C-alpha cells in the first residue's frame, strides 16, 4: 500500500512536467494554429542551459529565474524570423519547419555539449525528505516541482482569464480575423504566445534537470507523450491538458509498479481508446 501511494505521488510529479509541455503546445496551437514540433527540443535546450548555470552557480535558483526569460527571448526571436513566413502557407509547412529545427537544436547541443548526458545538482536547500503521513517519505525537491508547476498553471490561467492581454489572446484563439478587423496588432500577440509557450517548456526543462539529468534526446520521448496528452485532453483545452497530463503520469507510474513492461504502452492504449470513443478528447470542445 505504501508503495502504491508513493508511486501515485511520483506519477503526479512526472505528470506535472507533462502538463507544462502540453499547455505550451496547446496555447501555441490555439493562437498560431500549428503544432510546434520543436517543443521537446526547446525543453531540452532549457534543461541544458540549466545544467550549465547550475554547475556555475552551484544551485538551481538562478537558473529558475534566468532560463525561462532566456527561452522566452529565444522563442520570440524564432517566431519573428523563421516561423512568421509560414503563416500564409499550408499548416503543414510550419509543422515541417519546426521538425527541421528539432534536428538543428539536438545536433547543435550534441556538437557543443557532447552526446553524453550532464548532471544537474539539486538545490541544497531542498535536500531533505518529507514524510507526508502516507507512503514513504518523498524528496522535498519533488514536492517543490509540483508546487512550481501548480503556480505556473495558475499563473497561466489567471493571465488568460483576468488580464486584457489574455482576453485578446482568448478572442484570437476563437476568431483571429475578427480580432484583426478590430484593429489589434495581432502579430505581436502571436510572438508573445509563442514566447510564453517556449518559456513554459523551459521551466519544465529547469525542473526536470535535477531529477533525470539532461541528455540530447530527452525532448524527443517526452514530446511524443505531450502529444498524447494534448490528444487525450482535447486539442486546445486548457484543463483537458492538465487532467490528461496528470492522468497519464499516474497511469504510467502505477503500471510500472505492477507490470513494468506495459508501462511504455499505456499512454498509447489510452489515446487509442479516447480517439475511438471520444475523438474530441476528454474535455475538448466539439
Amino acid at each position, binding site marked *: 500500500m505504501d508503495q502504491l501511494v508513493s508511486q501515485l505521488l511520483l506519477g503526479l510529479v512526472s505528470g506535472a512536467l507533462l502538463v507544462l509541455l502540453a499547455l505550451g503546445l496547446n496555447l501555441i496551437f490555439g493562437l498560431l494554429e*500549428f503544432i510546434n514540433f520543436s517543443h521537446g527540443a526547446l525543453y531540452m535546450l532549457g534543461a541544458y542551459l540549466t545544467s550549465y548555470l547550475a554547475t556555475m552557480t552551484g544551485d538551481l535558483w538562478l537558473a529558475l529565474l534566468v532560463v525561462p526569460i532566456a527561452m522566452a527571448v529565444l522563442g520570440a526571436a524564432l517566431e519573428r524570423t523563421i516561423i512568421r513566413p509560414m503563416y500564409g*502557407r*499550408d499548416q503543414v509547412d510550419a509543422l*515541417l519547419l519546426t521538425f*527541421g529545427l528539432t*534536428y538543428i537544436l539536438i*545536433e547543435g547541443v550534441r556538437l557543443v555539449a557532447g552526446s553524453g548526458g550532464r548532471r544537474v545538482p539539486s538545490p541544497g536547500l531542498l535536500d531533505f525528505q518529507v514524510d507526508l503521513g502516507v507512503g514513504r517519505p518523498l524528496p522535498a525537491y519533488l514536492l517543490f516541482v509540483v508546487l512550481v508547476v501548480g503556480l505556473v498553471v495558475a499563473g497561466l490561467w489567471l493571465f488568460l482569464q483576468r488580464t486584457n492581454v489574455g482576453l485578446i489572446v482568448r478572442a484570437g484563439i476563437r476568431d483571429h480575423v475578427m480580432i484583426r478587423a478590430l484593429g489589434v496588432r495581432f502579430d505581436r500577440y502571436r510572438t508573445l504566445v509563442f514566447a510564453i509557450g517556449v518559456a513554459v517548456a523551459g521551466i519544465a526543462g529547469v525542473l526536470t534537470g535535477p531529477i533525470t539529468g539532461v541528455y540530447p534526446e530527452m525532448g524527443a520521448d517526452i514530446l511524443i507523450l505531450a*502529444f498524447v496528452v494534448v*490528444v487525450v485532453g482535447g*486539442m486546445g483545452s486548457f484543463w483537458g491538458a492538465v487532467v490528461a497530463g496528470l492522468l497519464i503520469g499516474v497511469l504510467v507510474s502505477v503500471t510500472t509498479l505492477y507490470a513494468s513492461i506495459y508501462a511504455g504502452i499505456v499512454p498509447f492504449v489510452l489515446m487509442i481508446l479516447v480517439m475511438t470513443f471520444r475523438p474530441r478528447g476528454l474535455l475538448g470542445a466539439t
Partner: protein
Amino acid sequence: MTDLRTPPASDGTPAGTGAAAVTIARTRGAGPARWTWGQLALLVVLAVVVMFTVPNPSLAIGMLVYGLWAAGLNLLVGYGGLVSFGHALPFAWGGYAAGLVLLHVSTSAWLAMLVAAGSMAVLSLLVGAVCLRRTEVYFSMLTLAFAQLGFFIALQWDSVTRGDDGLSGIPVPTLWLPGVTIELNALRDPLTFFLFTAVVVLVVFAAMVLYTESPMGRVLQAIRENEERARGCGYNTRLVQLATFVVAGTVAGLAGGLFAMLNNFVGLQPYWLLSGVVLIMVILGGRSSLFGPFLGAVVYLLLESSLSRSFASWQLIVGAIFVVCVLAFPQGLWGLVTQTLPSLVRRGRRTAR
C-alpha cells in the same frame, strides 16, 4: 455515398466522377500534372545512374528501397496533405514480418514480400481508422504515437522480436521464377539483388503513378486542396484518405521487407528510428511528384555516406538544409528543377529579347 470504383485510368484526361474534383485540384496549381508517366522513365534513368556510379552495392540497393518507401509516403504527404510522422511503423513491421517468415516458415522471397505487404495492409486499415478520426495536426500526432507504440512492442515482445538484439541470421531468400531458382544474396551477388529490387520498385512505382492518376487519386488531391468542397461534391473523403493510408502502408511494408532481405537483419535500429529521415527525404526531393522523394532519398543517402565520415554532427547540416528547403524551396529539389529553373530561364529569355 459516392461510387468510388476506379474505372481503368485513361490517358490522363479527367473522366466521369473525377472531373469535378480534378477541376478543384488543377485550378490551384500544385498538382503534378506535367510529369506523370515521364516519372517512370526518370526512375529508370536514376536506377541506371545509381547502378553505375554508386560504388557500394548495399548503399545502391538501399537507395532503391528507401526511394520506394519515400515515394509511398509522399502519397500521404504530397498528394493527400496528410503528414505522417510515423512512417517507420509500416517499414519496421514489413521488416519484422519478412524476417519472421524467412526465419521460421520458408525462404521464399515471394512469400516474405507477400506477407510483409499483405499483413501491413491489414494493419494500416486498423491504424488508419484511428489516425484518420481527425485530420491535419491530429493525424500527425497520432501516427507518431502509433510508431512509438510499435517501437515499445518490438522492444518488449522478446520472444518474437528478440527485443534489443533484433532478428539476426535471417536466411538468404530464394526467388522461384518459372524455370529458374535464384538465390538473393546481397553480399555475394549484389547485382542480381539490385536488378531484382529495381524491377520490384519499378512495378510498384508504376502502380503508384497509376493510383495518383486514377479518379480516386484525383479526389485525394482535391481533398488536400479543400476537403469541405470535395465532400460537397459527394465524395466520401475519409474513405479515400483511408485507402491512401493503406496503399502507402503497404508500399512501406514491402520496402521494409526488401530491406530485411538486403541486410539479413531486423532490429530496433535502424528500422524504428527512420520516421523523421523518410520525411526529410520527401521534403528534400519535393512533394509535388512521386519521383521527387525518390531523388530525395538518393541525395540524402549520398549526403549521409559522404558527410558522416568527415563530420560527426552531419545531421546538423541535414537539419539546416531541411529548414532552408521548407522556408525557401517548398517544392524541393525536383521542384527546383522542374518549376523554379524553367521560370528563371523564361524570365532570362524575356529580358534578353
